[in-house]
């Protein structure tokens, strides 16, 4: 038995990431942002060379619970530190919500191998559900969160038959067509606000209006703070859920189906059932994230959910390493926050990420952070290739 790696490197890694995040989100000038990026670009290869990265990796895989707790504490610490910065809190919230949507896409794409190029459409279904529920019904507004997920799963079920019957590029065509259909539909439908968009009223939970700033004594937080806490809770629950799913026999079945449909059918796996499950689950997660996102934005328009946005979600999956849940989380933060802070690339972000993915596919097809093998025994390195 090798000795169990200590918890220190994992916690140190979270602490460093938190400090870096605070510095990055709080950086005022473009020069500071550039310097911080250069620092990261220098520090990561250095850590890899000195072996620190391996230590951190071993420590994380041996102490997953500590690491998860530390990560949540890190987000909370950063949010508390930046609690008056509306923009920084908004960015953190958006990043966390896109992480949830990307996790949903990971279940579809990374686990079951079901392609979905309409991720932004399902996010949009969640947003528009939130808008419709708060505008046209008297339902309590907190219901929008589950409602967004359910409606996305329900509308997604229209696509189940086409997605099951087609594969490869044909399935891609179906989801692309659906994504464009969704946006075109929004543009011509007057009930949903047409091209101008529609307002989403805030969540009101037990008399607490989420759009109001939190005041506890001298502590006055941004009006996005309530949403940040909600997004963090949603992310923590979805993350735990997706990782449980990955480790369970369901995740194993999904992997088997992705790797070889015919073989897994021969071994008695119900291919259709698992694909439907993965597809619906992924859409549900995207819809839930979308509902909260709608409330956060306050005003949504068809242009928030274009084909380009769907491709950005796919880029997140590829940058993070297909099927790697932690990788996807990091990639989502990177993809959301970078263009907001580095204004020179804001306008170019669609093209930039598309180029990045092209290079990854050409030179590193398994993604920047390849998905590790499952280790059922914590701390034990899998020896099989």
């Amino acid at each position, binding site marked *: 038995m090798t000795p169990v790696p200590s918890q220190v490197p994992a916690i140190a890694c979270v602490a460093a990431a938190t400090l870096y995040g605070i510095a990055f989100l709080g950086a005022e000038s473009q020069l500071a942002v550039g310097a911080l990026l250069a620092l990261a670009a220098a520090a990561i290869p250095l850590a890899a060379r000195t072996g620190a990265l391996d230590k951190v990796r071993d420590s994380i895989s041996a102490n997953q619970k500590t690491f998860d707790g530390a990560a949540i504490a890190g987000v909370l610490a950063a949010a508390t530190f930046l609690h008056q910065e509306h923009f920084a809190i908004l960015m953190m919230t958006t990043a966390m919500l896109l992480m949830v949507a990307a996790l949903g896409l990971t279940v579809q794409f990374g686990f079951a191998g079901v392609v979905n190029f309409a991720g932004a459409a399902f996010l949009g279904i969640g947003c528009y559900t939130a808008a419709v529920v708060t505008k046209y019904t008297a339902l309590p507004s907190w219901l929008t969160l589950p409602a967004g997920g359910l409606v996305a799963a329900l509308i997604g079920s229209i696509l189940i038959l086409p997605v099951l019957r*087609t594969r490869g590029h044909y399935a891609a065509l179906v989801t692309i067509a659906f994504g464009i259909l969704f946006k075109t539909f929004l543009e011509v439908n007057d009930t949903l606000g047409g091209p101008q968009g529609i307002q989403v009223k805030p969540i009101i939970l037990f008399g607490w209006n989420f759009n109001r700033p939190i005041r506890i004594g001298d502590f006055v937080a941004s009006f996005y703070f309530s949403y940040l806490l909600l997004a963090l809770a949603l992310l923590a629950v979805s993350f735990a859920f997706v990782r449980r799913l990955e480790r369970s026999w369901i995740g194993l079945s999904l992997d088997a189906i992705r790797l070889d449909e015919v073989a897994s059918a021969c071994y008695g796996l119900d291919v259709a059932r698992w694909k439907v499950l993965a597809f619906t689950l992924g859409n549900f997660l995207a819809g839930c994230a979308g509902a909260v996102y709608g409330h956060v934005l306050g005003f949504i328009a068809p242009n928030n959910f274009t084909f380009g946005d769907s491709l950005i979600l796919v880029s997140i999956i590829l940058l993070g390493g297909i099927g790697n849940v932690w990788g996807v989380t990091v990639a989502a933060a990177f993809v959301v926050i970078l263009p907001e802070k580095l204004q020179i690339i804001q306008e170019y972000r669609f093209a930039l990420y598309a180029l990045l993915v092209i290079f990854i596919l050409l030179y590193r097809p398994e993604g920047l952070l390849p998905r590790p093998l499952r280790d059922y025994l914590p701390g034990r390195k899998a020896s099989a290739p």
Partner: protein
Amino acid sequence: VDIALFGQYLVNGLMLGLMYGLVAVGFTLFFGVLDVIKFSHGDVLTVGAFTGFATYLALKATVTIPWLQLVIVSVAAILAMAVLGALIARFLVLPLRSAPALNTLLITLMLGTVLRESVRLFFPDGSNPKPFPALLPNTAFAFGHFNLRVDSMILLAAGLMMIVAVHLVINKTKLGLAIRAVAQDGETARTMGINFTFVILVTFAIGSGVAAFAGVMNGLYYNEINFGMGLLLGVFGFSAAVVGGLGNIYGAILGGFLFAALQTIGAVALPFASAYKDVFALAVIIAIMTWRPTGLIAEKSSERV
């Protein structure tokens, strides 16, 4: 139905069908030789139309004869896109030949985004629609209330000639023989001394050139081009190719007309459809794909385990 309106819909539908068919020919050619789908095809069309537009702007002062302008604009667009198509094949599609098919799909999707965004960002004022010059004679013959426009007739004739030209190249030339050989069996074609890579590059050049032609046609017909025009045309073109059976050129053209007919009939027959015509057409695509997952004329392939 009013005869004038009917005539208008007929010309419109034929034009649309021809454009879809020309895009579909590219999809079907690429799939034929390499079994890949190049999702950036629609955006190549956009870049082709903008190349033509840029050529026109550059020529405006020196060449003033409209038909000469038109010839130069078309030739420039077609040649430029043929080169671009060959470059895409050489540097993005061929290197991924041994990778999973999904990677080719992703890389061409992303390339489409790069092309689309490049037009938007780097063409002067590219995010707004551009007025495409009317280079064809704008006279019209009146049949009762229906105006038969000469430019529409010329465009239809030119599109048909393009299809005939592709047909002749594929079926009557030595190059076409090589393309068909590679499409049938790449390995065997190689052992027969066919330059595989060259044939692939030429095929991509032909397909992309045809797309550029469709782009210029689109600009001349609607007198407007914008950076997003290729996305929808690409999706419809691909659907047309799928409906006609991928790898089958005549199927692709048939599929194009079928789609245009559906779209036109949908716009006329359904009461709510005029605003929802694209929604309707996209829903039809999804429905057809569900009904016949590999197209009306099914793809001839067995599951290779």
